[in-house]
């Protein structure tokens, strides 16, 4: 790689750690959000040890108790500890978010790779399918899928996967189309590389950075999507707990006497998604050369 001024980039590139530190200093919001996301992940993993009460236990305390020393976030109309329920909801939100993002990444990448690489007929068919998915609002599609397939975590994952596939597929396709123009791809093919080898060894690495950015932002969207499904009563069903579900039904009817019922779940969703979105933005700053240096 040679930069426009003729200096070989290898000479000016500092060590990997040095580069990370440089980005970290330039983007404190990115560091804070990364730490927050890590914190949320730890809460999801070690929730059982952190939760002061069993989230499903009715009458763990008095009903509608205000937030205080014993019940940090208060209790709900059945006397369940709100903090423990928020912690349980963290695991549900992240589990559904991560699994659906993983599934949509695998499927979306496959679609995008094929469409971008083969162009022509394959591209036409796959791209029109993605367009069709794009025409239906993601939330409506997810709602319809969940309503038709019935309740259950696996069904929610299917719905949220359909929610993200089009975005992933489009991003990958665009990147592949651009990466294909590189000389080294031509070389790899001229040297007799099979299609699958060229795709996996030479094209796929180009896709990684944009994919990680899209995955991060879509993770936020998937968590919001799950919350919306559960809010409307079509997502996570009791006894499982979800932040969206905590905001619906009884909580809304009693929010004037007990505002903490809606305030804490709202904060949980918002802070988590805010941190994820800030992280996605920071990653874009680092990886997207078009935007680098423009801020």
């Amino acid at each position, binding site marked *: 790689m040679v930069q426009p001024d003729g200096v070989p980039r290898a000479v000016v590139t500092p060590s990997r750690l040095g580069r990370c530190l440089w980005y970290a200093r330039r983007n404190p919001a990115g560091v804070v959000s990364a730490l927050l996301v890590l914190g949320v992940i730890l809460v999801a993993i070690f929730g059982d040890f952190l939760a002061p009460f069993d989230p499903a236990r009715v009458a763990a305390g008095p009903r509608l108790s205000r937030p205080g020393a014993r019940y940090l976030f208060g209790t709900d109309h059945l006397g369940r500890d709100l903090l423990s329920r928020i912690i349980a909801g963290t695991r549900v939100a992240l589990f559904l978010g991560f699994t659906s993002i993983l599934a949509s990444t695998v499927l979306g990448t496959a679609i995008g790779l094929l469409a971008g690489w083969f162009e022509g007929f394959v591209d036409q068919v796959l791209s*029109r*399918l993605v*367009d*069709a*998915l*794009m*025409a*239906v*609002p*993601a*939330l*409506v*599609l997810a*709602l*319809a*899928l969940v*309503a*038709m*397939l*019935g309740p259950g975590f696996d069904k929610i994952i299917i719905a949220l996967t359909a929610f993200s596939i089009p975005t992933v597929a489009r991003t990958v396709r665009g990147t592949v189309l651009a990466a294909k123009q590189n000389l080294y791809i031509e070389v790899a093919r001229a040297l007799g590389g099979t299609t699958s080898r060229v795709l996996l060894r030479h094209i796929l690495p180009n896709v990684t950075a944009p994919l990680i950015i899209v995955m991060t932002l879509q993770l*936020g969207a998937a968590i*919001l999507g799950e*919350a*919306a499904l559960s*809010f*409307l*009563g*079509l997502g996570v069903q009791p006894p499982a707990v979800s932040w*969206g579900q905590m*905001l619906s039904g009884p909580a*809304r009817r009693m*929010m*004037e006497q007990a*505002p903490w019922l*809606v*305030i804490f*779940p*709202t904060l949980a*969703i*918002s802070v988590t*998604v*805010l941190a*994820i*979105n*800030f992280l996605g*933005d920071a990653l874009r700053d680092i990886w997207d050369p078009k*935007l680098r240096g*423009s801020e």
Partner: protein
Amino acid sequence: MLQYIAGRVLASVPLLLLVSLLAFSVVRLIPGDAVMLMVAEIGNLSQQQLAQIRAELGVDRPFPQQFLIWLAGAAQGDLGRSIWTGRSVGREILRTLPVTAELALLSIAISLLVAIPIGIVSAVWRNSPFDYSGRLLAMVGLSVPEFALATVALLVLSLHVGWVPSLVYVPLWEEPWRNLGTLAVPSLILGFGLAAVTMRMTRSAMLEVLREDYVRTARSKGLPEIAVIVRHALKNAFNPIVTIIGVQARRLIGSTVIIETIFALPGIGRLTIDALLNRDFIQLQGCILVIALAVVLLNLLVDLSYAWLDPRIHYR
């Protein structure tokens, strides 16, 4: 230009066919069929009655045949009848569509009024405290779900102002003020979410344009800064801003589903949710089709508006 429009409209025909197939298949993922669901609701029916209901609904035919019959009807504006209420699906959609359209237009208007000025000032005063707070606000708008925002807004309004959403909806042409009063809070909430994305787009588009040579020329020939920004920069930054409005149409219509449910507005979003919860598959496939149609149409309008906004683009 006319040729381009005709081409674009023709090009969306296969897309619309795929979309209708999607709408039609999604509602058929239901385990068993709708008739079994009706049986569960109504109670015991004889085999003969079951067969009769299936024949009336057409679900005894093979899938491709069902699809073609529905498609032929849809092309003539007949989307069938609701399996529960027996009402015409098309008429129900026509009744609810204006409510959603008004809500969507109001939210887009609010979002533009908020987002474009903030985006411009953010770009011009880059890295100022104003810029940082504007960007933080946009991030909050992206991350707080509408239903949570609506819930908190209802809480604050009812506790401090004593305002509760009206349960009766009056059309705009009957009582305009009351109608706008009903739609104000929901469209502010939707507008805030939209403004977040538009503001980010305005800011980055302006940053890009402000670096251009002609902006430097305009400044150096002594034009007042406001003229440089509005007449030279903003005009050229408009394309990406319009694009993002098209992209957001999809998200906006998705959000109206939730907002209409929370604020008890009789729009198509609410109709869709009711159809979903009742598993009224004929109503549901009609709603999904019309919603997708609206998204495709809005994006088409956005595409066409490029030429109008940017004289450099000629469609040939």
